[in-house]
């Protein structure tokens, strides 16, 4: 359980990092929090030629809120920092609801939100939140202007993203919630902090008469990439207090195609999609009511 030998570079600026990554091309691998990469190295599941450690680069550890209410999280923001960030919680409460389910405090103190997304694990909480909020990843390359890649185009498969050789993900942007929209996050794991057998991130939008207008959900550990499903049809036009949330859960279960593994069969995961959806949606609806009161 020792990592294989690798070259190690610790650039002190973004320019230097991008130049090194550009020169290394496919031989380079970015090291940020290392909470996914270092286990992979120790288990010898990956053997990069050279690690480019970005931890000494200033200016990457900021959380900021854009004018339109999106939350931008720099590449070195640790999960624990995002969890504690009050402006980010105010702008997008779903972030804290999901981040508190990421592993354990010791892992959250070191692991980065951005790195978790780049790792593109379909059982990761933050990948689902990025997809659900219509977020994006900002990617920098030496000699070119940074580009934004939408979540829908970023995740290609399990542990596979569209981040190319020589590129650095400098930040992720979580999209702002619409007005009168509430959110909830629920997951079920065998042990606290372990990978979820299934998790559901949901949003519910209401109109001024508290009628359901839009319902969306993204799931963890259910497909090869975080998929966003529109569940509006099951409950649209109903007052939130009498909406049939289990119908939305059943609709969700009919839309997903989970695979089974050692921890949970495909059928069990599908059942969890229905149950977690039906439990999360009323919480999100209540949250929408609370948020519209605050806004009013």
């Amino acid at each position: 359980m020792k990592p294989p030998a690798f070259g190690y570079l610790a650039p002190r600026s973004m320019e230097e990092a991008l130049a090194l990554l550009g020169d290394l091309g496919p031989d380079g691998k970015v090291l940020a929090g290392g909470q996914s990469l270092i286990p992979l190295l120790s288990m010898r599941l990956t053997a990069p030629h050279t690690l480019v450690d970005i931890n000494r680069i200033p200016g990457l550890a900021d959380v900021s809120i854009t004018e339109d209410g999106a939350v931008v999280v720099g590449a070195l923001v640790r999960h624990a920092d995002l969890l504690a960030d009050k402006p980010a919680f105010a702008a997008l409460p779903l972030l804290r609801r999901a981040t508190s389910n990421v592993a354990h405090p010791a892992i959250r103190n070191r692991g980065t939100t951005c790195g978790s997304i780049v790792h593109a694990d379909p059982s990761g909480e933050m990948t689902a939140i990025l997809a659900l909020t219509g977020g994006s990843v900002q990617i920098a390359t030496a000699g070119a202007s940074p580009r934004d890649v939408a979540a829908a185009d970023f995740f290609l498969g399990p542990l596979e993203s569209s981040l190319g050789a020589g590129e650095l993900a400098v930040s992720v942007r979580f999209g702002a919630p619409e007005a009168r929209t509430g959110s909830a996050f629920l997951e079920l794991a065998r042990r606290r902090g372990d990978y979820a057998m299934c998790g559901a991130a949901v949003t519910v939008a209401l109109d001024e008469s508290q009628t359901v207008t839009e319902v969306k959900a993204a799931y963890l550990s259910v497909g090869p990439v975080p998929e966003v499903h529109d569940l509006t049809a099951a409950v649209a036009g109903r007052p939130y207090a009498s909406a049939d949330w289990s119908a939305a859960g059943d609709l969700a279960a009919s839309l997903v195609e989970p695979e089974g593994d050692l921890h949970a069969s495909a059928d069990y995961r599908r059942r969890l999609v229905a149950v977690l959806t039906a439990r999360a949606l009323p919480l999100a609806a209540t949250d929408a009511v609370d948020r519209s009161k605050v806004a009013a």
Partner: protein
Amino acid sequence: MSTEELFTVGLAVNGRTQPVTVPARRLLSDALRHDLELTGTHVGCEHGVCGACTVLLDGKPVRSCLMFAVQAEGHQVTTVEGLAAGDGRPHPVQQAFRDCHGLQCGFCTPGFLTTIAAALENYEPGASISDGEAREIVGGNLCRCTGYQNIVKAVGRAQEIRTQRAGPTPEHGAGQDGG
């Protein structure tokens, strides 16, 4: 295989900075145990699951098996050897583990002690730690002996000891421990 490049880094551990010369792949856990001979930090799973190797990095718990020694330069590392006071008086959490029989074989203990010691800092002396909060604090550490009940008790006991050592409770405003 060609000779690996070596890096000399100053590791600040328990208030003392010492140089170590290591390859980049040397895990912080191995640098502590093999290079600095601080064998209080135990190595269990070596992939971040068990928590036995937990140390404090700038006061916050981290897995020392999920960091390279070269990354620790410029940071303050606290291991279980650094928890007791200079005069040898046990840290409150160490005393609490003794009082509550919070350990049996002792393999996982250093990780629990560092994790709980850091978590206690989030509470004012006098504030109580609920059973649920205690379970959340130790949720990332595995123990194969105790069944956890006495470890959970030790969290509360450690806070009691901290409170006693802090002396008579000053007049605190209520609601300081929220958020």
